[in-house]
């Protein structure tokens, strides 16, 4: 899982003459704009270094002209890098001979294009079989394989149609099928859904995630849509003026933007979709139903600054008790109050991958939310105040506020 399928180190692309001089200027810290003004050369990509792990979707995001297409085309050598190293399975694309490059493209890396780039004079089946044809696979078997892949993307009935008979979304499915049929492990996708309308786009994103669950390809996905990046990307690289300014998971990028550029990007993102219960939960402090007295429980809460605690009955979650209720029950004159009397058994539970926007409802009860695993065991708890804090985007400040409220709520 952690193997790097694709490793890029210090890759540069300069469009224009006298690349060495431009490289020197770049090393002196000159900006893309200054270099354009001074030498007339365009810096496409500068000093890109990253690794793509096996089976992950690595999203490259940035505004128009930030060098995304250039970067992704360097990965399969369509654009030769001016400097740097691009390793695929230990082979350096930048140094590969034309024949070696062709072999790598046939066997290891396929590409899917924004405007589909289907061959207009061929049927869908022929289009999908293209990679195999190039590889010299006999007609019969490549046709069979093409039909299988068309089936996977739901286009088998159109196998003998021409691309022009299809809608954009369907054409891109063919593009995807052509990439998949070639059988390479790495897929490069340059804004594959950029030309589709929003509904189809959504559908295709879901379909890609679906396919990816079974296929486990290593995907480099280009987009300029942050929501798409957050939805699809296991990790995201953000580009600006040819530089990669930050690489990280969606959560990392949203919580800790590397600079103002990234911060501006993520400013109006729907945080409820980015974060999950996992991101806001904490280790639970629990008490045992039978062994703990009301007084001990109250003391633990006072010491830990908690206003509610989960009560376990052996391995099982029995329920939750709140400070207010326990304190009230202790006032009760009857001599033998137990935790059982104050136990709330109707507590909210979620699993770790529940998104914050779904947690929002559960947080409404005011009780800490139990995060349970597939065997119903308590793995963590989420404080309602943390949900709100993360949704508002100001986790630290909100946390402080929540702590203050809690302190106020507690007697003494």
């Amino acid at each position: 899982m952690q193997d790097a399928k694709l490793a890029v180190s210090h890759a540069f692309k300069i469009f224009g003459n006298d690349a060495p001089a431009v490289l020197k200027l770049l090393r002196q810290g000159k900006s893309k704009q200054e270099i354009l003004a001074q030498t007339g050369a365009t810096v496409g990509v500068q000093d890109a270094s990253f690794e793509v792990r096996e089976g992950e979707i690595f999203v490259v995001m940035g505004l128009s002209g930030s060098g995304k297409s250039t970067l992704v085309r360097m990965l399969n050598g369509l654009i030769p890098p001016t400097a740097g190293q691009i390793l695929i399975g230990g082979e350096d694309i930048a140094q590969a001979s034309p024949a070696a490059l062709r072999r790598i493209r046939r066997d290891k890396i396929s590409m899917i294009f924004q405007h589909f780039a289907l061959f207009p004079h061929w049927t869908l089946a022929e289009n999908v079989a293209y990679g195999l044809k190039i590889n010299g696979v006999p007609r019969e078997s490549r046709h069979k394989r093409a039909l299988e892949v068309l089936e996977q993307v739901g286009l088998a009935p159109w196998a003998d149609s021409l691309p022009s008979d299809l809608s954009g979304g369907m054409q891109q499915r063919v593009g995807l099928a052509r990439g998949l049929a070639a059988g390479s492990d790495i897929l490069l996708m340059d804004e594959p859904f950029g030309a589709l309308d929003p509904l189809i786009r959504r559908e295709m994103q879901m379909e890609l995630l679906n396919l990816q669950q079974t296929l486990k390809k290593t995907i480099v996905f280009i987009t300029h849509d942050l929501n798409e990046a957050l939805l699809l990307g296991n990790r995201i690289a953000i580009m600006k003026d040819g530089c990669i300014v930050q690489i990280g998971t969606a959560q990392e990028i949203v919580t800790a933007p590397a600079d103002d550029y990234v911060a501006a990007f993520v400013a109006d993102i729907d945080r409820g979709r980015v974060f999950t219960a996992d991101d806001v939960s904490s280790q639970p402090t629990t008490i045992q139903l039978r062994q703990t007295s009301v007084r001990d429980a109250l003391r633990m809460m006072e010491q830990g600054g908690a206003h509610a605690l989960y009560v376990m009955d052996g391995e099982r979650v029995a329920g939750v008790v709140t400070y207010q209720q326990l304190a009230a029950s202790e006032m009760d004159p009857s001599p033998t109050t137990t935790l059982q009397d104050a136990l709330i058994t109707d507590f909210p539970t979620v699993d770790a991958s529940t998104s914050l926007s779904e947690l929002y409802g559960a947080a409404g009860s005011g009780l800490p939310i139990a995060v349970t695993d597939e065997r119903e065991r308590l793995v963590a708890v989420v404080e309602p105040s943390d949900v709100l804090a993360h949704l508002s985007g100001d986790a630290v400040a909100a946390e402080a506020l929540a702590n203050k409220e809690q302190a106020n709520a507690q007697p003494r």
Partner: protein
Amino acid sequence: MLSPADIVTLPFDDWVNAFVRGWLVPNFRPFFRAAQVPITSVLGWLEAAFLAVPMLVTTALFALAAWKTAGRGMAIFTILGFAFVDMIGLWDDTMTTLAMILTAVFFCAVIGIPAGILAARSNLAWRIMRPVLDVMQTIPSFVYLVPIVMLFGVGMTPGIIATIVFALPPIVRLTNLGIRNVRADLIEAAEAFGSTGWQMLWDLQLPLAMRTIMAGLNQTLMMALSMVVIAALIGGGGLGLVVNTGLGRMDVGGATAGGVGIVVLAIVLDRITQGLAERSGVRGASLRQTLAGFFRPRATAPALEAEKAG
């Protein structure tokens, strides 16, 4: 008035004479003689075939081809036209002319299509070829009749060689154009899947350029037809000879009859090849788009894409 000629006069004609007579002809005559062998044999073969097949069979075949490619009207015209040519006694001359121009067009295609492919794939090759084609198209054909006679002698084959020189440029130009206008994103896709240059040529460039190439072939054919009278001056036979003879004797009737034969042949061949060109391109970009792209190479490709996306 003072003019440059008062200072220097250049014996340009002598230089050319010295070059052609003194160097080219003595040194390369055997080479040029050998070069006409393939042309002579293709011509002989075609002419024998056309003269051997009965008039009715030939007419039927052409009518069928016209019907398939250009419709019923053209088929009827072919039958009437060929019958008329036969009735005015020019059938054999027409077949000789047909054999000549088909030979010329065949060699134009054999030379021109690969040259066009080369020009499309290498900017250097195109930069070299382009002025040569310009000269071939603008130089009056009478000018190169003399050197051709000197190098190749007189007869049918030199006439065909003159025709080839004259009719070659369009097929080269349009092959080059057709291949260069294949959408860049398709080329990129082919490359991304690891295709070799040849695979790309066969799978993508030639099929998508076919319509334009066929249009080039049609133009080449028409230009070859327009050369038959001139080629007859250096020994080409057929209808060209009929027209020339008519001219020489001030025989309006004879010259007109030959002319009518040429026109009938031109119309029939033009329509058939145009029909072929149209059919070969149905699945690719249209010729009109391709030609439009020639004048606005940057503007058309995105416009086409926008059309598709929208």
